[in-house]
């Protein structure tokens, strides 16, 4: 793989927030990720692109150890958050997941009201102070561009919201924990263009404070939001480049084929 040079990579001097070092991953005896190494810069949107089954979502879920919930899997290599190995035995997984939030492809509101949904994370972390919880509620919903729509419906059941609102609720739920890294697994796949636009807008605002790693639901979306893009194919990382470059000047033939729509 060709390495990036300072000329074409504005992020190369930034310290990596997340470092993925030689990670391979098996589900059963299937190899899902083959020797991935990737540095993810802070305060930027990194998109993982490529055809379905390329290992993007799998990698995403390795970064907050959600794959721990699966049986019969194996990983080698290291993943570092701020230089600290997140798979080290002394790591408190709950603490890790509070720092690395995730939003799934489908809106998955938990049972309960809008308010309860946003506050699950802080409450699980032991926050009890009502004024602080109220602050978190308002801030998270505003950050997720949902506040204006639900401020009078906070005590309605969450499944009374529309699909787009539910997905932004899930984003707010992750933001409530003030994560440092936000993982987004095709967060707009079930949404209409208007809701998608709202979510993307809020992402631009969020990257000032957060490191965002996203599996976009289309190349177009990747092109709109990506500061940085990594192309995955069949469990391998083919190339990674700043976003504007990968879409205009892909280095690898396979990336070019994908971008220009020849497969995928």
């Amino acid at each position: 793989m060709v390495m990036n040079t300072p000329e074409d990579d504005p992020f190369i001097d930034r310290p990596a927030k997340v470092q993925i070092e030689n990670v391979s991953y098996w589900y059963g005896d299937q190899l899902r990720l083959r020797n991935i190494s990737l540095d993810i810069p802070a305060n930027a949107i990194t998109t993982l692109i490529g055809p379905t089954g390329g290992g993007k979502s799998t990698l995403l879920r390795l970064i907050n150890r959600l794959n721990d919930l699966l049986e019969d899997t194996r990983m080698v290599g290291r993943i570092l958050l701020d230089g600290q190995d997140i798979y080290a035995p002394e790591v408190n997984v709950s603490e890790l997941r509070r720092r690395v939030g995730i939003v799934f492809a489908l809106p998955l509101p938990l049972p309960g009201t809008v308010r309860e949904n946003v506050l699950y994370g802080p409450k699980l972390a032991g926050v009890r102070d009502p004024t602080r919880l109220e602050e978190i509620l308002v801030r998270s919903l505003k950050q997720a561009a949902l506040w204006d729509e639900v401020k009078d419906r906070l005590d309605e059941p969450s499944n009374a919201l529309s699909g787009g609102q539910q997905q932004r609720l899930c984003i707010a739920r992750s933001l409530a924990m003030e994560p440092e890294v936000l993982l987004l697994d095709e967060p707009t796949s079930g949404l209409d263009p208007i809701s998608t636009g709202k979510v993307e807008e809020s992402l631009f605002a969020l990257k000032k404070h957060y490191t965002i790693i996203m599996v976009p639901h289309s190349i177009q979306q990747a092109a709109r939001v990506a500061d940085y893009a990594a192309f995955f194919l069949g469990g391998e990382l083919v190339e990674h480049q700043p976003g504007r470059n990968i879409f205009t000047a892909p280095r690898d033939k396979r990336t070019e084929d994908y971008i220009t729509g020849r497969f995928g």
Partner: protein
Amino acid sequence: MLKGDLTTRTKTYQSEAVIESLIRVLGFSTIGFVVLIFLFLLRQGMPFFFQVPWANFLGTRWYPTFGLFGTLPLILGSILVTLTAIVIALPLGLATAVFVREVAPNWAREVLKPLIEVLAGIPSVVLGFFGMNIVAPLVRTTLDVPTGLTAFTGAIILAYMALPTIVSVAEDALDAVPKSYRDAGLALGATKWQVIWRVVVPAARSGIVVAVMLGLGRAIGETMAVMMVTGNAARMPLTLDSLFRPVRTMTATIAAEMGEVAQGSVHFQALFGIGIILFVLTFLINLAAARPIFQKRRRGGLR
């Protein structure tokens, strides 16, 4: 605030570890109970098999007061009543399951299923009471036999007690047959009736066998109703008319005699010995019924 070092452990971490290990222990406890039950049956019943000669407890006469502990009439009595019950219950149960699952209109299903659940909930002593007061006189007059308290009466009651199990397990088995099988049959021009008996029921065969096994297990272990309606005569049920004469089962023997024996006597141990036989018998039946549990299954998805 929310965050500490990645390696921070909160106080709740320890109390959770306690809760989780408690849950683990509770999960394991079921194995412990089975072992415990078997051990305590052995503890009280094992001496019987050593003290009494084989020829005696495999004999044909059960007269504990005279030191005769032949368990054969009791075992055969149980088998006679149980098998007859299954012979009655299987066609009824299978037909009902097929009716409920494949034929019945919705309203009939809504009526049938709760009624069968009601049957499952009726205590065995109530069924026994009903059997001795209503069914037994009926059997006596219609069959013109000296007493209505017969193996056959017991089998009828047992059949109805086994029915809820058989119906619900068979129903699940029918339900598990893919719709595509039915569609394929119908597409070939078969009638619904032909599809049911030539496609659906054969495809559900293994589930129906499980239903029968579970029904069998339930019937052989049934105690109160059987004791109240079978007349309890410990005789070898070898002649053709045995079905219509009193009989005595293993379960009824334990229930009827345990109250009157001296602890630690041979008779006391003999009753535990019968308990061991029953335990082993039902264990084997359930093992056979539960065979699918031992087939490796793989779960997908996040857990």
